[in-house]
């Protein structure tokens, strides 16, 4: 990011404030959703969706991922794949477990 001009930085600052407001709002939303009478599955889905939006905002704008370099993208893709394997495969194993 060493090539940013002062004007570009000022523009980024406007984005940071917008993201901050969105994050605060989404936090209230996610707490609000938890008071809804929904099934556990729906609750998890909604919570994950909101958390993912918040996470994406932090990653894309605070962490500047939205205009990062290809090398970083490849690193993150590999990481996300490994992460998904770590989350879903043991879960599949326990769901497929032999019932005694």
């Amino acid at each position, binding site marked *: 990011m060493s090539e940013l001009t002062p004007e570009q930085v000022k523009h980024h600052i406007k984005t940071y404030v917008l993201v901050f407001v969105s994050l605060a709002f989404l936090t209230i939303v996610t707490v609000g959703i938890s008071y809804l009478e929904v099934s556990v599955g729906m609750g998890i889905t909604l919570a994950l969706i909101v958390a993912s939006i918040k996470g994406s905002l932090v990653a894309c704008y605070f962490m500047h991922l939205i205009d990062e370099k290809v*090398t970083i993208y490849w690193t993150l893709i*590999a*990481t996300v*794949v*490994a992460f998904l*394997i*770590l989350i879903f*495969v*043991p879960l*599949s*194993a*326990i769901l*497929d*477990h*032999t019932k*005694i």
Partner: protein
Amino acid sequence: MSSEHHKQSFLTKYIWSTDHKVIGIQYGITSLLWLLFGFLLMMIMRYQLAYPESPIPFVGSLFGESGILPSEMYNSLGAMHGTIMIFLGVVPLAFGAFGNYFVPLQIGAIDMAFPKLNAASYWMYFVGSVIMAIGFFVPGGAANSGWTSYPPLSNIATTGQTVWLLGMVMLITSSLLGSVNILVTVIQLRAEGMTWMKLPIFVWTQFITAFLLLLAFPPLEAAGVLQLMDRLAGTSFFMPSGLVVSGEVLTNAGGGSPLLWQHLFWFLAHPEVYVLILPAFGIVTEIIANNTRKPIWGYNALVYAMVFLGFMSFIVWAHHMYITGMGTSIGAFFQTTTMIISIPSVVILTTLLLSLWGGSIRFNTPMLFALGFIPMFGIGGLTGLPLGLAAADIHLHDTYYVIGHFHYVVAPGTIFALFAGIYYWFPKMTGKRTNETLGKLHFFFSMIFMNGIFMPMFVQGLAGVSRRLWDGGETYAHAADVLYLNEVMSVSAWLLGLAQIFFIVNMIISLFGKKTGEKNPWNATTLEWTDTTSPPLGHGNFEVVPTVYRGPYEYNVPGDDQDFTPQSKKV
């Protein structure tokens, strides 16, 4: 890092050094000492297996008046032998020592990307290894639940297990920092002209290994934290409800799962075995190219196979868990991925074999070890296939067959490759030569006795002899016919130990030998040989940082006046 020629104190130059070459040697010496210690532990165990309940010679007094190795202590030696060989021996040598020393040199860099972090990684490894050593001195002795530390046993085990966990946290952190360093160094500090497909295969293997360590180790660190919580804070992450120990029901909350540990553990430990073999592939490739005087056959295939191998290594782990009651669907998934992952290994071995065809082979000591690696790794790999097939694994799981399989890949596999690397790069690191006669004796006797130890294990395993048995199967009728092999294997093990004296003596006399002044005695093509002195310059490696014009293995290029063309030679 400026190039002032200030006088550095001994401490700064050799102990707290941030020079990747010094750090590489620090890793090398520490890991070789640990390999020796791990070997000694095994020699003691093998005495008990050959002559059950006989007093152990020389060190028997450590085990009490009778001198007989108690069964709990046998378990400690077993768990620590595995832990030490893998985490304190092979990986620090293959990745920490060779990686640190030669990756910057081979890519034309003046040091690693983060020299201070590099020093910190070494010292964390050192502290981690001291913590592991302390385990032997706490009440109850060192960890004794296998290097795999399965709960519930490891949860209720003696204090040594907690020490093991703390040591692992330190070692894992060291490894993570080292991985970041290698990755950034290879991506950012390649010299001009050193494109990805001009990298020596050794650098590729270090790069892929670093990625595996980076992404696979943290879940084990998480599991370690969870087990520490179970042991120290009384949680029940891995403890099922209603567990009965020594006739009493445990009072903890329960509701946990031992399988959780196994998933998190093997998520690391499977990629870990590729961490053990990839650097070996890299070293063997360098030596084969150099000693056949021709380029490696199938450079691209090698690279793609190794990248594919790295990726696949993340989705095969539960082949270590086939008999835990897994459902057939998930079992079939892991069996499929496991069969698929054997393909890149075959591609790799094939490229190495085909590289020999038509070569002018020089049978020096490094080449002998590299050549020996090929069939030994072949046996190791092939014996893995029945283990990867769920049905056959039912019979073979946790038997001596498994021990034979993995030792073939690591011992006459990786460790032979590491010896090859030591003999090959010794002249570069020291400016001196090793003794060829001693080297060849080391090779021949090691080759014979490695097979003497590990081949009979397949026979015992197929007969059904379980691993981790203090009495070597004596109490079981099904083991009766193969029990005699215990003595055969033990004698081979002790003779293998004696054969290492050739290596140790060789190292000592060579280190005290005369400097030859030769920069490139093997007439090799890669930058560490062609563009640096032996040993390379203290600050910055290169008098002139090279530019790269060619691939890494340009041997016998038609029209050239020499039979090797350096990477840095202008086109």
